[in-house]
């Protein structure tokens, strides 16, 4: 946009050398930047077109009060974790039962995310506050997260990380005390 203005004011300057503002001409760039344009790359105070604003304008429009859309959005939030579960199942299946870095990373991620979500329940409730089924949706959300963590625990169990068998508690068994004292041997 600088070029027509530049031509316009170029036409101006050839006329009189003095940049006089014409009454009805629109200057889209300031004249004093022409000479310095090549020295500074984009320091030009480019004039924006009419109606363009640099800063984002806050949306001061009235909130959508369509009940259906609100409900739909809240349900989306509530069912989010449940939708993650099939994907997690697939990831689990792919990573296998050996203990190496990739499965451990996947399991940790799968375990941590529901726990983090459960810990920030209050933020979620704030998101859901506009619907009138918010308690039900909250419940569904937490159930979904619990199912996610149960899935992570099941994965740990199938990798053999949980101390469910007696061999895991073997190290804590103390040797039994002797009740009788015994000695002797072959007759010397």
């Amino acid at each position, binding site marked *: 946009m600088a070029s027509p203005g530049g031509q316009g004011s170029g036409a101006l300057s050839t006329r009189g050398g003095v940049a006089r503002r014409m009454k009805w001409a629109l200057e889209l760039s300031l004249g004093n930047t022409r000479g310095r344009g090549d020295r500074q790359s984009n320091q030009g105070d480019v004039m924006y077109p009419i109606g363009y604003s640099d800063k984002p304008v806050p949306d001061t429009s009235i909130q959508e009060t369509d009940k259906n859309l609100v409900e739909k959005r809240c349900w989306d939030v509530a069912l989010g974790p449940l939708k993650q579960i099939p994907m997690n199942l697939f990831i689990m299946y792919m990573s296998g039962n050996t203990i190496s870095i990739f499965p451990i990373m996947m399991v940790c991620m799968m375990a941590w995310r529901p726990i983090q979500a459960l810990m920030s329940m209050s933020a979620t409730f704030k998101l859901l506050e506009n619907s009138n089924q918010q308690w039900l949706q909250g419940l569904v959300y937490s159930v979904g997260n619990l199912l996610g963590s149960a899935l992570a625990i099941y994965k740990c169990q199938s990798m*053999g990380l949980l101390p469910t*068998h*007696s*061999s*895991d508690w*073997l*190290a804590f*068994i*103390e*040797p*039994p*005390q*002797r*009740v*009788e*004292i*015994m*000695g*002797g*041997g*072959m*007759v*010397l």
Partner: protein
Amino acid sequence: MAKLVPLLAVFFYLVCVSEAVFEDQVGKFDWRRQYVGKVLFASFDSPSQSSKKLFVATDKNIFASLNSRTGDLFWRHVDKMGPEGAVDTLLVNAQDGRLLRSWDTNVGGLNWEVVLDTGSFQAACFVGIQDTVKHVAVLKKTAISLHYLSNGHQKWVENLPDSDTVKYQAVYSGGGEEVFVLGMVPHSHLTITVYSLEDGEIIRQVTGPQLSADSGRRLLDTTVIFPLDANGGKPQKLYVHAFLKKDDSVGYRVLVQTEDHALTFIQQPGRVVWTREEALADVVTMEMVDLPLTGTQAELEGEFGKKADGLLPMVMKRLSSQVILLQAWMAHLWKLFYEARKPRSQIKNEVTIETLSRDEFNLQKMMVMVTASGKLFGIDSKSGTILWKHYLENVQPNAAFKLIVQRTTAHFPHPPQCTLLIKDKDTGLATLHVFNPIFGRKSQISLPALPRPILQSLLLPVIDQDYAKCLLLVDDQYKVTAFPSTKNVMQQLQEMASSIFFYLVDSEQGTLSGFRLRKDLSSELIWEVVLPTEVQKIVAVKGKRPSEHVHSQGRVMGDRSVLYKYLNPNLLAVVTESTDTHPERAFVGMFLVDGVTGRIIHEAVQRKARGPIHFVHSENWVVYEYWNTKSRRNEFSVLELFEGTELYNSTVFSSLDRPHLPQVLQQSYIFPSPITTMEATLTEKGITSRHLLVGLPSGAILSLPKMFLDPRRPEVVNEHSREENLIPYAPEMPIRTEWFINYNQTISRLKGIYTAPSGLESTCLVVAYGLDIYQTRVYPSKQFDVLKDDYDYVLISSVLFALFFATMISKRLAEVKLLNRAWR
């Protein structure tokens, strides 16, 4: 030492074959001492002053050459044990009257060997003609033979006249052409028969009345006074070597053999040049005792041993102990600095009793050895130097010894105490010798009177006020004497008398009997197991070592369940051999008997097997080795006992409350060589895997991992057994030479191996004794708890510092660059 050079040559050859020990570690953690035994004959090398060699022949059928300057061995020949190898006289070394051998004196090589006709040997002598010795005459009971000295061939053999009435005793050659034989008819007359050198014809015979024994010219009449070791015995035999010195006076050197089998070499003015303790060739039993703590260590132990009494006092205690440690460290630094300034020669690096104290990892211990001659030795386990000796008078030749450690060095103000029970086999009476194992001095403690013969002894964990364990002595009326018998101990004994049991095994009658103690210290018989002596004879009974600690109570299976071990501390392994030794009918019996109830937990009979049986009983397993007469090979068999998948009672073990018998798993393997002795390694906490130290007759000790002797080894491998790391079953047990723990230091006639735990969990101290004594350290699971020997502290710390500084510098440089860029 002259023996070092050929040894080194052999070692460098072997070092490319075996990888068990690094070259620079040879001799660092292990040592070997070689002995010859009680000297029967000795002779000096040459009749001049400068002779360096001394030849001895001993009662252990050994012929050796000693360096007369230092007492070290030049070479040694170990012959067969038993009467075939016995040495009769030492001139040129005839043996048993059957073999005549000539040895080269420098190297110990055999020049020739001649088999003589059998006949009881009487005497032998060199026969010379005018200064040259060319023949050897050997006198037997009925014949005399003359042999050439160069090759041993017989020149002539003649029967002695009237050899059934006349006892011929000596043969002599005067340098002429004749050989004189002296014979004696008891209580009647002497005869001298003269044989001609050429062909053995009898030249003349002279008889005469019996002369009184008094002859010989005495050339030298001196008395020698020399210092005798106060802890040694009286002199028994003297071997005098007299020679003419340069200034024409007579000089002498004397080799004294004392009652305690020690050899002392004395030079002219009564000066002792060297001493050899040959009693150590016959070690009966030994124990290893921890060294005492230093003053600071003892204080620290004392401080932290007491009960905690609050937060602030504990903090103050900690601070004060740190101050003490700091002081000790600065004193140590100062001493190091001071010693480094002194010239090298003045720094003495000897080990003396006064400077002994426990080192950081408790790897240096005091070995207390009891020998068959009745002499006690205290030997430092790190260097092998003898620190103290003590000779017990009046010990009969076939006495039985039992060495018990009653108090260790862990209880600081009280000195450690060891008790030696010496039982005379003929009279059955026993004596106790109580001594301090660190200094060897006899303890001033009142001993109980033992009027009756003693059958056995047992050590109780009942502790006196001064921390000494109580020793019970059982006499032949089955009454018990307690030692020490203070009031405190007697009170404790009376309280726990009903839970003290002991067993006695009589192998002549084939009975095992179990007794229980009553409050008045008499005992009642509660069980008896009789194994009839017509069929089998009880050979050995072994319980478990009381200091053994089992780390895990079960084995983890492949499906993550647990198979619990049957850990019965009262279990005895009884081994019997059949009286019928025919290869088809011989058998070996193994009985596992509970010592408290007498219940036979398991019995196994190995048919067509024969002893000598060597076995080890430890934890929940028994490993035994026998000779299979049908397949004519040596076999190993292992028995393991398991309780099952559930523990009956996990808190308390009582033999009286065990209704279920354990499951027994057994497997056998073929071993390529006979063995002389066997022992298992032992560590403090039992975490390290166990190895069996097997002594082979070639003089090597094999460290066999117990993993190979596992009855669960599968024949068909499946996934579970791979989980458990079980080696698939193969009937042959390989001997891998890298498992030998004594690289080229063979030990002749190995009799026993003793293992002791050290302060480090990975290390076990091993002492093997027989004719030689060898000490080393064994690492069954490699050294998992120490940094390696040649850890490169310098390199790692310098790299660390360099990287640290590089990081700091580059961080600073990066900051500077960023700042400069921001200012452009």
